[in-house]
């Protein structure tokens, strides 16, 4: 008879469940439930005390209603009452309700914990297990606090029943996982390890899970478990299929325990003890041997259990990665599974082989299965299996099979499920780049990607192909020819237009000799796509057009016509309009020479991590790509396929990829230049901008040797008619300041005029005036030689705003600096003047940088200085009476508002000079404030557009000690510190 009658049937519950099942509609069901809830509520509230059975029945009904998906907000108290019932099933239902519907009502938790405590102390194993199950099911921190200390004791107590030990072990595991800090380590841990020797297989099964978790956190404390686990495993593996009685599962001895033991061993490296290791290797070999034996049963359960152990064994072999013989055997075994009729086995074999592929011992063995895997990619009916096949192809790819694998993946892409297309695209792009022997193949592959799955080709992918083409002059002609051909297709993807537009703009001249791709043909081909494209693409094409004017003067009239058209000049989109206006003006105003300079070919891109690889890593999570991009088995490939290393003739400086394409849309972070000589494409470089990392930027010496960067032509800022090209301070143009830049700048903290810099070639003088938050600075550049400086371009940037890309877009957040253009030529012995209008928007700590580049006798020169614009320049002196001063001084008494420095005098201590310096610093000097007349007291307000910062200062000279003490109090902490440092250097 079915067990409905077993134990205890609750009639009322069965009736209720039947009623619910007989409800014809959702509404009817809700009605019936509400009726029942009302009934239960009235029963619980009623005066008559309910007997245990009724309570159990109603609590059970509530539980059923909750499991149907309805909210239950009462009955908890009744369930808690059931916990202290003497009747087993009442207690059991109470615990079930608590486990499923626990809430953190503190009052209840206390009661529940009390009931659990009683049951744990009852010495009745059945009750103890119920209590332990409840703790394990709830696993909350409150329960951990209450019981984490007791459970280890129960676990290792000599008189605990086996079933209690089992529950205690897993209960402790759950608590340890939830709050490891609550479980005290101690003497019990050693005894837990010895549970591996327990006679009761169930106890071992439960204990191994706990031990594995403990090992992961404290491997050294549990090392003794290795030999115990090996001997236990060995006994199981070598036992006959019936020895273990009820622990044998379909003729497989203790499969769950075996798998758990193998997992435990994966917490450690191979055993150091030779005997233990020998025994373990024997076990692993036995498992591999058994896989070849004929099955003892045709049931799938038999083969599943057997193969579960086999796969776990293979995982351990891969984890050790030290036994070539076992690795190759594992690989062969998986190879057999690749063609198994069971889909599950094929799936797991593909998955497992992925990890084998990254081992140097088995990589070759894995490669022999390439045809089977390709076949799986083509014929598997289940998308999740195909996904595994694609992963494996990616993992087994190397120089020898890259072409085959990439072409198969491309073919698969045509029919691939939408869900995995983007990932396949990324993988193809990475493999094509990593293993490219000739770059024409690489270009073909990427263009194919765009053709087949253009929608899934992300920015990273097509940016990358442009970077590589730009950096490899051997492929530029081929790339131009190929994109030209690809663009012939009547319907081609917009990404193709982008790539085509960019490449033809840079290298269209390389195919212009062929009348079939003459300049006018190239232009009209591109322009035929123009109107169908998005704004971003059209913006890019406009840049291509202005580049064409430089490359092919014969297209100038046509292109100017296009730019002049009302649809461009008055385009509603401000970016397009601005480009059209600027490019049109540039093309009419600038001389051919200037055009040639401005629109020069892009310089090579700096070395950086493939942004595609970074994207794949992001997609797959950490660790996923580590097996994929691991360079150790293919280290030699890096020198070739780091193919974008800078050519020796030019030292490239980093340039943000955003401006590469002249698109303002979310630029990937600019990478710092790779260390010299590192050809590794996959080197993980920091994504901070160069200004933030002066250490990595070109040293001044290199900067002097480096060739003049052509200004980025795509940046419309650079092309405004009024300012000089260099007025657009792209961060890429700025090297690190020269070493003495700080010293030079410090000379100007307390004065506004003087010579900022001088060497044999150049003298730079400064004259400046400041009022409130505004300032005007005149810079005088004097050519000390008799030779003309050419391409003379001074640039001002504010690094504080350039450290982040958002800062780059939102430049001059702290300071607004407007520069007027200067002549590009400075005659020998002549002086040119540049005017800077400066507005302080908010408080700032770092001064702007002035970068000067020019050619002297053909040799490029460059130099970066710190501009003497410090925050004290915006001081407005404030006079105040002693009383006011002290009152304010007290108001600024928070510790972070004060900055103090005690320092040795570096100049003779002269009161008059000190006074002059303090006045030059900008503050008012207040007499009769400090009781000591030797001391100086000052006050002022720093004026910025956004806010005003009140500052008070006090300088106490000690003539005997030749020391000063300087104290500053302002309402902004960084300002106090900064002013204090600036001023302290002046004495």
């Amino acid at each position, binding site marked *: 008879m079915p067990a409905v009658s077993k134990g205890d049937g609750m009639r009322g519950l*069965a009736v209720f469940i039947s009623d619910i099942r007989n409800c014809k509609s959702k509404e009817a069901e809700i009605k019936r439930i509400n009726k029942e809830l009302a009934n239960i509520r009235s029963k619980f509230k009623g005066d008559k005390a309910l007997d245990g059975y009724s309570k159990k029945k109603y609590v059970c009904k509530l539980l059923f209603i909750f499991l149907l*998906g309805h909210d239950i907000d009462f009955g908890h108290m009744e369930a808690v009452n059931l916990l202290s019932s003497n009747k087993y099933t009442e207690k059991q239902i109470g615990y079930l309700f608590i486990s499923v519907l626990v809430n953190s009502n503190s009052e209840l938790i206390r009661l529940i914990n009390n009931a659990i405590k009683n049951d744990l102390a009852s010495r009745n194993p059945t009750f103890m297990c119920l209590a332990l199950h409840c703790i394990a099911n709830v696993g909350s921190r409150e329960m951990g606090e209450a019981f984490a200390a007791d459970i280890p004791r129960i676990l290792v107590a000599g008189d605990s029943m086996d079933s209690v030990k089992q529950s205690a072990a*897993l209960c402790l595991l759950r608590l340890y996982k939830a709050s490891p800090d609550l479980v005290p380590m101690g003497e019990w841990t050693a005894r837990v390890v010895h549970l591996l020797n327990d006679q009761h297989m169930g106890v071992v099964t439960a204990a191994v899970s706990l031990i594995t978790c403990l090992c992961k956190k404290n491997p050294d404390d549990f090392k003794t478990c290795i030999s115990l686990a090996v001997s236990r495993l060995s006994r199981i593996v070598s036992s006959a299929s019936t020895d273990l009685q*009820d622990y044998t599962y379909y003729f497989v001895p203790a499969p769950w325990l075996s798998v*758990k033991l193998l997992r435990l061993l994966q917490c450690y490296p191979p055993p150091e003890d030779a005997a233990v290791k020998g025994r373990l290797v024997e076990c692993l070999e036995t498992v591999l041997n058994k896989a070849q034996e004929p099955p003892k049963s045709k049931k799938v359960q038999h083969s599943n259990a057997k193969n579960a152990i086999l796969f*776990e064994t293979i995982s351990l072999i891969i984890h050790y990665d030290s036994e070539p013989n076992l690795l190759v055997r594992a690989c062969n075994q998986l190879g057999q599974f690749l063609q198994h009729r069971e889909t599950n086995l094929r799936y797991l074999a593909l998955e497992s082989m992925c990890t084998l592929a990254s081992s140097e011992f088995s990589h070759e063995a894995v490669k022999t299965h390439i045809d089977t895997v390709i076949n799986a990619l083509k014929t598997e009916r289940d998308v999740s299996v195909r*996904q595994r096949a694609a992963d494996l192809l990616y993992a087994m790819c190397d120089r020898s099979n890259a072409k085959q694998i990439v072409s198969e993946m491309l073919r698969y892409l045509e029919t691939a499920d939408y869900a995995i297309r983007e990932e396949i695209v990324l993988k193809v792009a990475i493999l094509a780049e990593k293993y490219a022997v000739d770059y024409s193949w690489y270009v073909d592959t990427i263009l194919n990607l765009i053709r087949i799955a253009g929608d899934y080709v992300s920015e990273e992918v097509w940016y990358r192909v442009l970077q590589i083409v730009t950096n490899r002059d051997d492929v530029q002609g081929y790339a131009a020819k190929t994109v030209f051909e690809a663009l012939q297709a009547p319907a081609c993807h917009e990404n193709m237009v982008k790539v085509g537009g960019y490449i033809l703009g840079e290298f269209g001249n390389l195919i212009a000799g062929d009348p079939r791709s003459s300049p006018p043909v190239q232009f009209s081909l591109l322009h035929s796509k123009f109107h169908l494209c998005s704004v971003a693409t059209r913006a890019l094409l406009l840049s291509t057009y202005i580049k064409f004017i430089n490359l092919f003067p014969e297209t100038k009239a046509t292109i100017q016509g296009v730019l002049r058209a009302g649809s461009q000049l008055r385009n509603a989109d401000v970016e397009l309009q601005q480009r059209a206006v600027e490019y049109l003006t540039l093309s009419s105003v600038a001389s051919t020479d200037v055009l040639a300079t401005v629109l020069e070919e892009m310089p090579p891109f700096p070395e950086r991590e493939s942004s595609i690889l970074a994207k794949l890593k992001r997609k797959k999570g950490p660790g996923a790509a580590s097996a994929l991009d691991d360079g150790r088995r293919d280290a030699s490939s890096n020198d070739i396929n780091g193919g974008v290393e800078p050519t020796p003739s030019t030292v490239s400086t980093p340039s943000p990829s955003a401006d590469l394409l002249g698109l303002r849309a979310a630029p990937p972070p600019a990478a710092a230049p790779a260390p010299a000589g590192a050809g590794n494409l996959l080197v993980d470089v920091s994504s901070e901008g160069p200004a933030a990392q002066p250490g990595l930027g070109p040293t001044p010496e290199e900067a002097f040797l480096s060739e003049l960067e052509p200004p980025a032509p795509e940046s419309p800022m650079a092309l405004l008619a009024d300012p000089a090209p260099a007025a657009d301070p792209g961060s890429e143009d700025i090297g690190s300041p020269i070493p003495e830049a700080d010293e030079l700048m410090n000379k100007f903290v307390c004065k506004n005029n003087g010579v900022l810099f001088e060497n044999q070639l150049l003298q730079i003088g400064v004259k400046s005036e400041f009022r409130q938050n505004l300032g005007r600075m005149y810079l005088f550049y004097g050519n000390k030689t008799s030779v003309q400086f050419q391409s003379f371009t001074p640039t001002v940037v504010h690094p504080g705003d350039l450290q982040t890309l958002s800062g780059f877009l939102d430049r001059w957040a702290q300071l607004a600096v407007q520069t007027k253009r200067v002549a590009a030529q400075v005659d020998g012995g002549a002086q040119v003047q540049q005017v800077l209008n400066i507005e302080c928007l908010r408080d700032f700590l770092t001064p702007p940088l002035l970068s000067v580049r020019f050619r002297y006798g053909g040799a490029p020169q460059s130099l970066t200085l710190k501009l003497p614009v410090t925050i004290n320049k915006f001081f407005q002196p404030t006079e105040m009476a002693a009383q006011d001063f002290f009152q304010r001084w007290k108001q600024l008494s928070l510790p972070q508002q004060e900055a103090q420095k005690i320092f040795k005098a570096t100049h003779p201590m002269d009161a008059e000079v000190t006074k002059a310096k303090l006045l030059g610093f900008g503050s008012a000097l207040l007499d009769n404030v400090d009781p000591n007349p030797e001391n100086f007291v000052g006050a002022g307000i720093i004026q910025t557009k956004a806010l005003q910062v009140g500052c008070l200062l006090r300088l106490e000279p000690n003539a005997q000690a030749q020391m000063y003490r300087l104290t500053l109090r302002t309402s902004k902490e960084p300002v106090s510190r900064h002013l204090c440092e600036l001023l302290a250097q002046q004495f």
Partner: protein
Amino acid sequence: MQFMLLFSRQGKLRLQKWYVPLSDKEKKKITRELVQTVLARKPKMCSFLEWRDLKIVYKRYASLYFCCAIEDQDNELITLEIIHRYVELLDKYFGSVCELDIIFNFEKAYFILDEFLLGGEVQETSKKNVLKAIEQADLLQEFQEVLGVPRNPSPDSLSHVMNILMSQCTK
């Protein structure tokens, strides 16, 4: 193991066991998504799939789907056999178990599961030991009933239930 779900071919949830702390809202969302995903799969497809950052192992027995979510390093095949062993335990306890047994005796299904798996790990794999624990509890109950307050089952309500059960089973 992170959780186990039993649901019918119609997508009705019959049993849910969570071994990780999640809010009710999350549980409902996960259940809805997974039931949809699994029911959409064709019979011959493999029993494993990647879902979020978990591995899903599922198997269908008659009208019921058993579905487990395990972590990356867990063993798929042994999880498949966890499901099978649980089915065997239910089968042995109820005597050729059907979906209805689990609906009407959901509490028993939970008790059996707790004896077999605890905190998401296998506690006891021996069928005999698991059922012994459950039967002992049943015996304890009967024993207590003999000694305790006897209940008066009214013949009407009992036959009502039996009729319903019979009609459901033959449906």
